[in-house]
């Protein structure tokens, strides 16, 4: 099992992690909350993501080869590491379950209405569990090519849909005050920007090099991600205007509007492929890191693969049981609880550990 990454591979994986699934899922709810100011929310949260990269990269540099659980244990003691690690793991399980549920919801609502959610969820988790067994060094190679195809299709979609753009839809920008923009910032500070803390579990796999530019490359990946999200959000706004926020899977809906001569039409299948592939890659990264987290909580080496299956099974059943309290409850979990959970499980712990490391540095 090859388990090392080059800085370039780490940056590609970071871009995939940030962009996968969010590029299709973010525009509609973001526009619903922030209206025409969605782009302002995106830029502001992108800056928050850049700031959050500082503690992640600094800690990885200071404790080479150590994951978040390991350096927390060293800095704050084992009980604190276990406490923070369990909360950290809980959020990763919800991320994996939520991402795969999203694939299932998309497939059921858009393509295969007679098939039960659970079938998509079980097959997706089977594929994910088998993928992460081969090791991060191998699957990141495959993911790079898949993500390239996703981005080509999305740019192609935006270019073709530009024929339907109505530039008047961009105005007015802040007609309801600043609260809608803050709501958008709250929503995307959890998904995808708060989630970048997960890379504190992946950076130890990056091979140390004499001129280490991993941080800069990751910052570039984050800026590219923000630019991509801006592109699709503006394309959705320009195509649908005031009703853009009601269009779920907005890039899929944008693709449906394309009709240029008789050659370029019905290209939404490409967006369907993009959503499924991008979500699959992101879910694989999340299940991989949750497995590493579990291994380190138990004091096992990260090469141990014995717990992948039961963890994937638990995520699959949690994902299947998402719908038992109804769709409104799930929407509240995604838009209301998820950002707060991310803050408590990811953002506050990494900032806390970073400050403790700074204090320790001053003392020594």
């Amino acid at each position, binding site marked *: 099992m090859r388990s090392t990454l080059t800085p370039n591979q780490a940056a590609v994986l970071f871009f995939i992690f940030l962009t996968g699934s969010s590029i299709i899922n973010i525009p509609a709810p973001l526009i619903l909350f922030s209206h025409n100011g969605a782009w302002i929310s995106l830029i502001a949260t992108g800056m928050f993501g850049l700031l959050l990269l500082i503690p992640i990269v600094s800690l990885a540099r200071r404790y080479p080869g150590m994951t978040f659980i390991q350096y927390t244990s060293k800095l704050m003691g084992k009980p604190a590491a276990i406490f923070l690690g369990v909360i950290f793991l809980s959020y990763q399980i919800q991320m994996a379950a939520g991402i795969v549920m999203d694939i299932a919801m998309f497939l059921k609502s858009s393509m295969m209405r007679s098939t039960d959610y659970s079938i998509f969820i*079980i097959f997706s988790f089977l594929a994910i569990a088998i993928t992460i067994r081969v090791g991060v060094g191998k699957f990141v190679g495959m993911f790079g090519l898949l993500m390239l195809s996703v981005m080509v299709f999305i740019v192609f979609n935006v270019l073709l849909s530009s024929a339907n753009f109505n530039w008047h839809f961009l105005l007015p920008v802040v007609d309801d005050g600043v609260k809608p923009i803050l709501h958008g910032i*709250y929503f995307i500070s959890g998904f995808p920007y708060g989630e970048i803390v997960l890379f504190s579990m992946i950076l130890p796999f990056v091979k140390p090099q004499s001129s280490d530019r991993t941080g800069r490359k990751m910052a570039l990946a984050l800026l590219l991600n923000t630019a991509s999200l801006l592109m699709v959000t503006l394309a959705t706004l320009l195509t649908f205007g005031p009703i853009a926020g009601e269009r779920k899977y907005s890039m899929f809906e944008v693709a449906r509007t394309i009709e240029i001569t008789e050659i370029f039409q019905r290209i939404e299948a490409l967006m369907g492929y993009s959503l499924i592939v991008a979500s699959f890659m992101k879910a694989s990264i999340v299940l991989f890191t949750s497995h590493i987290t579990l291994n380190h909580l*138990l004091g*096992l080496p990260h090469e141990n693969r014995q*717990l992948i299956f*039961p963890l994937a*099974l638990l995520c699959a059943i949690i994902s299947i049981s998402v719908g038992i309290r109804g769709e409104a409850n799930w929407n509240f979990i995604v838009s*209301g609880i998820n950002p707060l959970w991310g803050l408590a499980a990811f953002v506050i712990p990494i900032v806390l550990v970073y400050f403790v490391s700074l204090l320790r540095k001053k003392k020594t």
Partner: protein
Amino acid sequence: MMYFLLGIASVAFLAHDWFIENLRGALNRVKIAYSILLLLSAYHLLIFKNWLRSFSFYDTASLIFGPAAKAIIAYLNPKG
């Protein structure tokens, strides 16, 4: 169909982990963690089937974060 797929996948992976990944020779804490994860899966399946009325994973999260999340969303809503 769902239970058939879950059953087949569970048996296949358990056999693979037991014989190929050498789960039978693993440390006790690995076996305990493996069992806990399987038990948690069974617990959620019982809740899903409505055979057990208890807190699921997301119900627990809603209990912890729900009130604060509702307050934040109410504050951020320009219409109150």
